[in-house]
């Protein structure tokens, strides 16, 4: 009796398992897919539709396929647009220069305290983004902790200031996005097979040659991911510009915020967001093309 039942289950079970097997990948991607649909695809389609609407808050907005809006917003805000791309690029460059040696040192010389060092690197970032930026505002105040002291010792002219300059905004962005660069770099460098490095030494490569011809090329996936993770949010950032900036440091994120929340020009804000996204996506595709998509897949 027991055996018959068991075989029965087996007989029925086999095709079922096959069906499950075929469905499994779809079922497994379902949560992610739904997530993308709900929180990315629908909002983005909605935003695209808003960007092509005309009207005002009072009269309501109608979809009129006003494609000219994209040209209008670009003409009106191209300065802030280009500025954001420049600030984002420079800040990303700085994070790369700062984070690479740190990640390299932790990966190769961190010894058994690697995790501790990584934790120390991340420690400041447990504090909220805005609070950290406000702290810089306090530290770098004209008569504050640093500049005030240097001015009292007559090491700096009295009119010298850091806040309210492009440099302050770029440094703020670089500081705030450092972990996004440092972590992928660390992961990539840490994964490098030490025997390859030893082999390079055995083959009479100098220290700089080992770095330029072996270590750096092997860490490129980390560099790629780090730049991607830093550059994209850096370009869209508006907190640093509004807290650390002055005149002529407005970024595109500030403009989107202004158009959305102060002027209630939803279509303008939507068009700007869309343009920014398009520019970033095109940039990333070009960038991936140059560095080779293989390296992304390798990394992922």
């Amino acid at each position: 009796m027991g055996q018959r039942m068991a075989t029965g289950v087996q007989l029925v079970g086999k095709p079922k398992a096959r069906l499950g097997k075929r469905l499994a990948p779809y079922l497994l991607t379902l949560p992610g897919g739904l997530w993308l649909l709900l929180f990315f695809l629908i909002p983005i389609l909605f935003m695209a539709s808003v960007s092509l609407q005309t009207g005002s808050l009072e009269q309501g907005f109608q979809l009129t396929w006003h494609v000219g809006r994209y040209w209008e917003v670009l003409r009106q805000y191209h300065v802030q647009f280009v500025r954001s791309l420049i600030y984002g690029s420079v800040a990303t460059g700085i994070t790369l220069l700062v984070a690479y040696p740190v990640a390299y040192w932790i990966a190769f010389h961190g010894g058994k305290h690697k995790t501790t060092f990584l934790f120390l690197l991340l420690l400041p970032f447990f504090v909220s983004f805005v609070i950290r930026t406000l702290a810089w505002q306090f530290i770098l105040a004209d008569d504050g902790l640093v500049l005030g002291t240097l001015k009292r010792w007559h090491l700096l002219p009295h009119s010298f200031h850091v806040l309210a300059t492009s440099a302050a905004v770029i440094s703020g962005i670089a500081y705030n996005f450092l972990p996004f660069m440092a972590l992928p770099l660390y992961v990539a460098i840490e994964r490098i097979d030490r025997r390859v490095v030893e082999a390079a030494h055995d083959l009479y490569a100098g220290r700089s040659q080992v770095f330029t011809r072996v270590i750096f090329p092997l860490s490129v996936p980390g560099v790629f991911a780090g730049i991607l993770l830093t550059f994209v949010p850096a370009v869209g950032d508006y907190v640093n510009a509004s807290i650390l900036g002055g005149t002529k440091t407005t970024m595109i994120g500030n403009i989107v915020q202004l158009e959305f929340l102060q002027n209630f020009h939803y279509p303008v804000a939507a068009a700007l967001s869309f343009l920014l996204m398009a520019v970033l996506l095109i940039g990333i595709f070009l960038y991936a093309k140059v560095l080779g998509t293989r390296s992304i897949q390798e990394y992922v």
Partner: protein
Amino acid sequence: MNDQPDPARRPIDPALLRGLTQRRYSRRDMLRFAGYGVGSAGLAAFLAACGVKGSAPKASPTKPGASPSAIDFTKYYGDGKPAGTLNFANWEDYIDVDSKGNSPSLQAFTKQTGIKVNYKTVINDNDPFLAKIIPVLQAGQDTGYDLIVITNGGGIERMIALGFLTPLDHKFLPNWEANADPKTKNPNYDPGNVYTVAWQSGFTGIGYNSKVVKTPPTSFKDLLDPTYKGKVGMFANDQDLPCPALNAMGFDIDKSTSDQWKTAADAVSKARDDGIVRKFYDQSYIDALENGDIVLTQAWSGDIFIASAPKSFGGDGFPEMKFVFPQEGPIYWHDNMAIPLHAQHPVDAITYMNYVYDPKVAAEMADFIWYVTPVPGAQSVVLNDLKDPTVANSPLIFPSAQDLLQAKQYKVFKDSAEKDEWDSVWQPVYSS
């Protein structure tokens, strides 16, 4: 010394207080507010429109400027009996607070009327707050607030034009009728006070650090002078920068033409490009002034009073900070109480509106808030009953008729086309 108020009146960090007093959301609120987390009011409108429908009836908004006699108030106020709850949305530091963090005037209100007040300091800025509630109102739902405080010069006009405010039945407002400052009655942005009554007012003038700036400034034009190059602050909004600039150049704010706007905007842009203006600020100008980042700036009267008052008195302890009314006149603005459409407890809200126009209550609040109360009768109460001559005699809190003579109002826009043109001139100045 004993006529000074209790030094422990403002002991709690406002930020902490805000954290402690955030509105607790009901489950229905959670659904409704879920959309905002994404930071997109438009998306919220979309979600609200297709997702979450409220139970509030879709009342047709009253046309702006409708005469009060034509309004059927029973539609809004029912039988005129309070429901016992008031959800009040206000700004930070904008009500009297005792050492325990409670508001004596709110407690007295509850005691007197039996209405429990959920007081929430959720408004940090007019437009972003309105950006949150407007999509809800567009979906025909209750915002969760029965009483809101919104500044004139854009926000309150927008709400009136959209028809998103409940008209006020003046039979509930005898105290207002009797005690309100005539200068705040019948304002240009709400003729006949159909939708609003003033909460507090203030001045946009000039603040400076008298330790550095030895000759007191007299006009907005002094901010364009290179003497304090790089140490000058201005406001970054569509009223507080343009109106004083136009006014200083002798243009009538309300009747000014777009050519005059450009003239004034060019003068400010030049000062910016010459490096005279350090930054166009939001509320953070006051920190910059106290830090020494700026020494001469556009300022709001109450902020400078708080900055200059001694710490023992509840101020920030910077006696060198001074405020001047520019000779061309300050800008006199008003924060207004209003009841959003579809509010659940409109009778409670209007009962409270009337309550704060009792001179005793107004005095109690004025003695803490330090902006301009709309109840002139409060001055003698502050002086004689509360024994606080510093506040009672300050022209920043109880301005003289002379001070008000020169005062100008924010620009009221004819239509959104005029506003857009105004923005196209001024916005590039302050968000360069």
